[in-house]
């Protein structure tokens, strides 16, 4: 999995996370970097407070507005397409239910796969090893020791 991150408009602009300005940009990225080995940002003009909307926010996430949703997603999908080609990005993480639903529906119009969009806490969930959790590695080690 090679990841990039889509800043959600309503979190990115005139908002904050944590106790420092720009926390809403740094915190999600720090979380993603801690859960995966490869992370690349999209073009600077399309992220952080200049982020492009997914195309489905503001009450437009409905099938009767499909044309405007697909066309409005173009700038974001274009930036995603470029990091896919230049950096080998395979997935894009988001922290907004609307963004996730919109991309799941719209990416296939651009020949991309709907599974390329993931939740940030899905990444956390995959990376987190719970206390008492038996992992595949543990089992392998136990098998090695037994052998």
């Amino acid at each position: 999995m090679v990841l990039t991150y889509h800043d959600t408009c309503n979190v990115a602009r005139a908002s904050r996370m944590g106790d420092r300005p720009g926390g809403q940009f740094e915190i999600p990225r720090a979380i993603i970097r801690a859960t995966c080995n490869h992370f690349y940002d999209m073009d600077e003009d399309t992220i952080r407070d200049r982020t492009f909307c997914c195309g489905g926010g503001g009450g437009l996430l409905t099938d009767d507005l499909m044309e405007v949703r697909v066309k409005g997603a173009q700038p974001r999908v274009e930036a995603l397409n470029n990091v896919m080609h230049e950096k080998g990005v395979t997935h894009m993480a988001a922290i907004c239910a609307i963004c996730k639903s919109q991309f799941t529906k719209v990416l296939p119009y651009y020949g991309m796969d709907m599974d390329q969009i993931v939740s940030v806490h899905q990444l956390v969930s995959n990376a987190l090893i719970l206390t008492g959790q038996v992992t595949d590695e543990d089992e392998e080690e136990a098998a090695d020791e037994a052998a």
Partner: protein
Amino acid sequence: MAKADFEVPVLKQYPEIPEIEPGVMAHSSPFKAKAEFQAELGFPGELVDNWQEKAIAKMGDLLGRYRSLRVYLDACVKCGSCTDKCHYYLGTHDPKNMPVGRQDLMRKVYRRYFTLAGRFFPKLVGAEDFTEEVLNDWYSYFHQCSQCRRCSVFCPYGIDTAEISMAAREVMDHIGIGQKYCNEIIGKVYKIGNNLGLPGPALEDTLEGLAEDVYDETGVEVRYPLDEEGVEILLVTPSADFFAEPHVDGLIGYGKVFHEAGVSWTLSSYASEAANFGMFIGSYENMRRVALRIREAAIKLGVKRIVFGECGHAWRVAYSFLNTLAGPWDFLDPRYPIPQHMRVHLGSDPAGQAPARQEPER
């Protein structure tokens, strides 16, 4: 590849600013809300007879309530900074999807009825009567704005097109023209508690299933509680998290993080929705009514902290408006910010290693 009955834009290596194609998106309008759904939100069911008079009166009301709206309508100097910043313009090429073009739809009406020059010399100042044609443009193009506010980042005056588009939708709702998608969803929140209309038992079922899945996968009993009183944290998350992919994988993640951090938490079937579509339609009253459900649930469950799940506009409502909208929150633990975003505090593990332990940070 998904099939489209319109032309899907071609992706390019470098962004291109398209030439304008006037009117190409004039046909795009969302379905209108039926009368029964309008009533639930306090709006007339269909276009009222004296709609023009009513619309102008409502505009006057909003201009009096929100000083910002008047400033935005007055301040534009047509510098052009915003023209290539809207994703809907870049994708559709329709000049009414340029932020200034969208604002002008309201600005011309504002000038006609609320400025001296517009009243006496409309043609000189670009003022226009609020005709049916203008109203149709409003309904079409104010529903081609996602209120993302990217344009306002580039506007030297900080004009916020989102606020203008919210005001326009509020005016239209008050003369009986509402958008089906938003208004029906708000109705569902009032009736059932969330945007998707998932009742309590369905939520309970889903959460039990998630706990089983996590147990099968990890051998650890992670709980996904619903309506549990006396716990520390109320988690408010968008209802899509209960079943849609990849949203539900995020919900599984929240539960694991709370579990590992050793904090008690619960979801609420009454406030089972973080989203607040009241903001999208610019209706303070409806936004407040939706937000108050979170307050009521927090008081009833006796929680000390409220944490929001992964949702963009819910976070704006929470971070920017919740204190005045549904406060005071004096019953919550003052050692934590109110409200909080679902996120994790990272350990010092080297990048790429799964952190051994993560916990929700204040």
